[in-house]
């Protein structure tokens, strides 16, 4: 297993050697969880899984919702340092992710490595398009976790939404007075950035030149407004003069090894710490250019078996990769959550 993420580089040239290295690590991680989690062990035994496997496609995956159903951890109780939860949109149950110190630390190291590629090594003044979690009780934990997670790349934090979810113009003006034209970092959830920032400031003139916007959280809420990634970028750059805008994709089960989009082709790209596969309804691997269920790998999870996860999201690896950039990871698109089935049966009235 990788024990030292510090000396790794986030976007290695992909080569067969690199793939082999990844699978070797995955094999060790699988074994590690087999040895340390009773539940995971039962799962592998029932599946007649061969621990010697090194074929990426054959590693056993867990569905992301399993973390809502069972407490899964590969550490002793007293080693739990932090429990991360996420509400998700599908149900009342929370995903529970158990972290020990080492796993939490590795998440930060890897996230830093990735973010450095868009923000540079220095901490930047940070504008957060959200309410200050300290004063707002109504924002849910996944949002707070993300804000806290990304805040390690910033200084001079400015939360520009007030308790009513409106832009605090005084704060925004004073931030821009200090930093406009120089490099700074803006973070927010995609739908909030659009609705509470772009839409509410339609009649104001603010110049955010120098700002790099990082946003994530999905497009579901903007679908109705017919806003996609491309349109979002175009509208926001025209209006605010941002230097760059990056969408990211990630999930609480694999915090740290997030997927940043390529600034040229707008696809998400896997890093040295992650891989992606697309599967059909029968869990067969799909060809590039076909839409299916996203399966995500991460080398980070050691305190819980979240290294190989089948998500509920529909994605696609494009057929042709002709991006001009030098990142050699796998490129992919995400189309959002798979449509829920209509209930058939007689289990409930109304």
């Amino acid at each position, binding site marked *: 297993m990788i024990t030292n993420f510090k000396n790794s580089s986030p976007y290695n040239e992909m080569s067969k050697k690199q793939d082999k290295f990844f699978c070797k690590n995955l094999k060790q991680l699988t074994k590690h969880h087999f040895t340390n989690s009773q*539940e*995971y062990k*039962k*799962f592998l035994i*029932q*599946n007649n899984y061969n621990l010697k496997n090194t074929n990426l496609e054959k590693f056993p995956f*867990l*569905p992301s*919702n*399993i973390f809502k*159903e*069972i407490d*899964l951890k590969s550490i002793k109780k007293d080693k739990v340092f932090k429990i991360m939860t996420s509400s998700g949109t599908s149900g009342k149950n929370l995903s529970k992710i158990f972290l020990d110190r080492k796993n939490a630390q590795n998440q930060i190291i890897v996230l830093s490595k990735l973010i450095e590629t868009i923000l540079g090594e220095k901490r930047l003044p940070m504008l957060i398009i959200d309410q200050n979690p300290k004063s707002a009780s109504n924002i849910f934990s996944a949002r707070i976790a993300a804000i806290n997670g990304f805040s390690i790349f910033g200084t001079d934090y400015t939360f520009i939404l007030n308790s009513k979810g409106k832009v605090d113009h005084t704060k925004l003006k004073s931030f821009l007075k200090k930093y406009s034209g120089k490099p700074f970092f803006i973070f927010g959830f995609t739908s909030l950035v659009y609705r509470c920032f772009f839409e509410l400031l339609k009649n104001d003139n603010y110049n955010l030149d120098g700002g790099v916007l990082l946003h994530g959280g999905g497009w579901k809420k903007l679908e109705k407004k017919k806003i996609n990634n491309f349109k979002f970028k175009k509208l926001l750059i025209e209006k605010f003069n941002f230097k760059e805008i990056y969408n990211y994709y990630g999930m609480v089960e694999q915090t740290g090894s997030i997927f940043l989009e390529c600034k040229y082709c707008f696809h998400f790209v896997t890093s040295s710490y992650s891989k992606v596969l697309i599967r059909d*309804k*029968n*869990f067969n691997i799909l060809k590039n250019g076909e839409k*299916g*269920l996203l399966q995500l790998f991460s080398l980070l999870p050691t305190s819980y078996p979240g290294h190989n996860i*089948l*998500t*509920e999201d*529909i994605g696609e690896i494009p057929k042709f990769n002709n991006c001009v950039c030098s990142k050699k990871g796998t490129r992919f698109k995400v189309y959002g*959550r*798979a*449509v*829920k*089935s209509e*209930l*058939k*049966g*007689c*289990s*409930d*009235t*109304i």
Partner: protein
Amino acid sequence: MKNFMNVEILVGDKKIHSITNQPYNKNILNFLDDLSKNLMKLKEIENYPDISAVAFFCRKANLMNQKKIFFKNKEFRIGLGLIFHIAPSNVPVNFLYSLVFGLITGNSNIVKVPSFKFAQIEIICNIINKLLKKKHKNLKKFIKVLRYEKENINFTNFISSECDARLIWGGDKSINEIRKFSVKPRSIDLTFADRYSICIINAGKFLKLNHIKKITLLNQFYNDTFTLDQNACSSPHLILWMGNKVKKAKDVFWSHLAKISKKKYQFIESSVVEKYTQVCKRLMQNDNIKNYKFFDNTLSTLAVKKLNKDILSYRGRWGYFFEYDLKSLSDIKDISSKKIQTVTYYGINSQLIKNTILKLSLPGFDRIVPIGQALELDFIWDGYDINKTLTRIIDVK
């Protein structure tokens, strides 16, 4: 009337009638037969196997059989009055079965359909309206179909206080909610609650079937289970094996079923992931699982180590079954509960199953039917005889 606030009327008017009719009279039989014919004629029927099933149920030939049964007893029976039907939220055509029960027994009916606008409900109500407008005007007062939100408790309260019987379909929680609204002193409730169903197969007898007969039986099993994604109360979740060569029979049964389900079963990504989550959860959490077989994403089976009442909460969906090898039929005592509704069977004498239940005085077990008939809603359901329960006797001496 202000009671009808926020109530959408699909069939009928705002007047509440409580009139009775002679059960199985010509008018009703002809109306239902016309309804059946009109439904069968629809172009869209191919897309709605559930509509064609209920249309089949409404045809005169079927109802004439019921009529014969009804009049076997010489006593004079008449409808109770007004029946309030609360249909389940997730079986679109169930409301029509319930309505037929009420109508044929000579009652006036108010049917609450699910708030979700199923296409099947619109289709059926359109035809009912067409028939009531012209040829079957005289039945207008007997049929009212309404849609309103669960939260509209005023209306549920109002009709509950007016009706002579309620037919409540749904989960235990929903039924208890409806039961909070009191009814008249002599009114009755028929509740069709959450149930659990099982299947018993004689392995040796199954293996002796020739190939075509095996496939026919498997298709019948498929219809019992996959048709409603295993959600129907009468679809078996637990398959119990007995007799000789159980291991071989299981291999043949499941591998052939997988071929059928792979070909026929329509399912979507989100169901696949949810099913996989449920299977993983059982494998990880449960110590009562002996082995797990994944045939294809349309079919997974989990063998349980021993029978116990916990199993009544093991529900598969989208092609996910539990199984167990019986040492003797009396082993079913270990899962017996009032929750058990249907036993489907193959290769076993149904009288033997009944006698075992009686001998051990087991609770539950309302239906013992051959494989293939699990979903056939009948006038005897959940232990009630609809013909008798929705009518009263006028005792003339």
